[in-house]
């Protein structure tokens, strides 16, 4: 099928850009490593336990964060906003009988998979050398459900980023808008620290936002802190948020394309 061809083509491109991809991986790895170091010191001076988090659980958290973040968080919004909409490359897509969403999806996924690959390599290295620092669930069912949660998280974040990208239909410099959400995501997706360590009022807000379901919940699912019921709940919430995002996307797309083709850029 044609989408499969696109997927393969992008896989090839990704392979030739291995070095660049590795740099992106390092870019994700650095802040998480720094934060891990921070918590290590904080935990030591607090008797090894802060609100239920220990050195091993927090190191697992940040390790999984580095790995999952590079896999889950797509960077598609810049490509959509700058190249396609502002520079007009979108016309190329509009004349094709393919879904823009799916085309971008199959173009982006190989990159994410390569990042995920680096992540798995790091994970394996850790299980070999730092086993005591790693606390992941050993229960196969929970593990499987966590994988589902991770994949749904990718779809959720991808759709959200696509909507962000579409904002360029109406905003002349969408970059500021994107950066605002970057900042929000850092806090509310658990990229800075586990949501349960936020000040209580803030934590309550973030649990109700879609961003928590992009990174935070996948991580703690994998850590095995959630029981079956809670995992099913997470999956349900992800599906609900994906539906909401999909709806918002289709509305934005219809309105945006109408504007784009009516006036052009």
């Amino acid at each position: 099928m044609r989408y499969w061809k696109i997927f393969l083509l992008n896989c090839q491109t990704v392979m030739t850009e291995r070095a660049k991809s590795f740099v992106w991986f390092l870019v994700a790895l650095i802040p998480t490593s720094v934060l891990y170091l921070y918590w290590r010191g904080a935990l030591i001076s607090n008797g090894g336990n802060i609100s239920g988090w220990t050195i091993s659980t927090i190191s697992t958290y940040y390790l999984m964060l580095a790995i999952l973040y590079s896999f889950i968080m797509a960077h598609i919004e810049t490509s959509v906003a700058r190249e396609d909409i502002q520079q007009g490359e979108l016309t190329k897509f509009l004349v094709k009988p393919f879904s823009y969403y799916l085309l971008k999806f199959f173009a982006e996924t190989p990159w994410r998979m390569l990042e995920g690959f680096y992540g798995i390599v790091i994970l394996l290295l850790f299980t070999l050398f730092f086993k005591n620092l790693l606390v992941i669930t050993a229960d196969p069912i929970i593990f499987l459900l966590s994988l589902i949660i991770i994949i749904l998280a990718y779809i959720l974040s991808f759709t959200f980023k696509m909507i962000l990208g579409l904002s360029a239909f109406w905003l002349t410099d969408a970059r500021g808008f994107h950066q605002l959400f970057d900042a929000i995501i850092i806090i509310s997706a658990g990229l800075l620290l586990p949501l349960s360590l936020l000040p209580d009022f803030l934590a309550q807000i973030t649990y109700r936002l879609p961003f928590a379901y992009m990174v935070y919940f996948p991580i703690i699912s994998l850590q095995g802190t959630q029981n079956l019921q809670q995992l099913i709940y997470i999956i349900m919430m992800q599906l609900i948020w994906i539906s909401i995002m999909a709806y918002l996307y289709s509305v934005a797309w219809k309105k945006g394309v109408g504007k784009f083709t009516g006036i052009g850029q």
Partner: protein
Amino acid sequence: MKRYFKIYTTLLGMNFQTLTTYRANFINSIISSILWGSMTFITIFILTTRTNNVYGWTREELLLLTAIYNIIIGAFHMVFSKNFERFSEIIHFGRLDGLLMKPVDPQFLMSFWFFNYTSLFRIIAGVVFAVLLLNSQPPSLLSLALFAVLGLVGIALMYSIWYMISTLIIKFTNLSNIIDLLYQVNGFARFPQEMFRQLNVFAFSFLLPITIVVTVPTKLLISKATFADFILFLGTSVIFFICARMFWKFSLRYYTSASG
């Protein structure tokens, strides 16, 4: 020397004029500066919610570290960042040739061509917070003067690190995202140097330069700096500056021998 000064003031003027041509971009840059400046404070605040002592630093001291970080990073972004972002573009599109044809030191042209006025807001934000935090124990005039000197030394050190890594683009032209990596590396400077001591010796000495950029000037302001800190700081800065220059010249020779 005077000539370079004149060239630089001309560039400053041209950069100021370009500022006003793109109104939307100008406002966006300011919002960006303020946003990320605020984020640095918010994150430290959040991180210190449930702990009050990290590596011997209190919450207030960490916030002061963040304020100083914003001042130093703000100054760095103001003078240098845009130029580093242009590095890979210049080398990739062969514009380095044009620069080499000018009767001016190419490193100067690569480093000082653009000036980002909007980063001034970040510096101001940092100064405001620093003043608030130091209100109870204001530093002496001598301390402030020494701080300014150390700040410049820190910026020079950061510059040298960035320059050395960016020079790699001459050989590895497709690594245009190395700048994004450098922005993250700067992030190390937001935390106290002591935090990195827990790494093994190699990692620590590798990271040492960037970790002292902000820590040492801050320690000066809260009177916790030692003489050893100063020597280490100055020495590292000088060594890195010389290395950056030598590596650049070496890479230029490579460029002019191997390019077509």
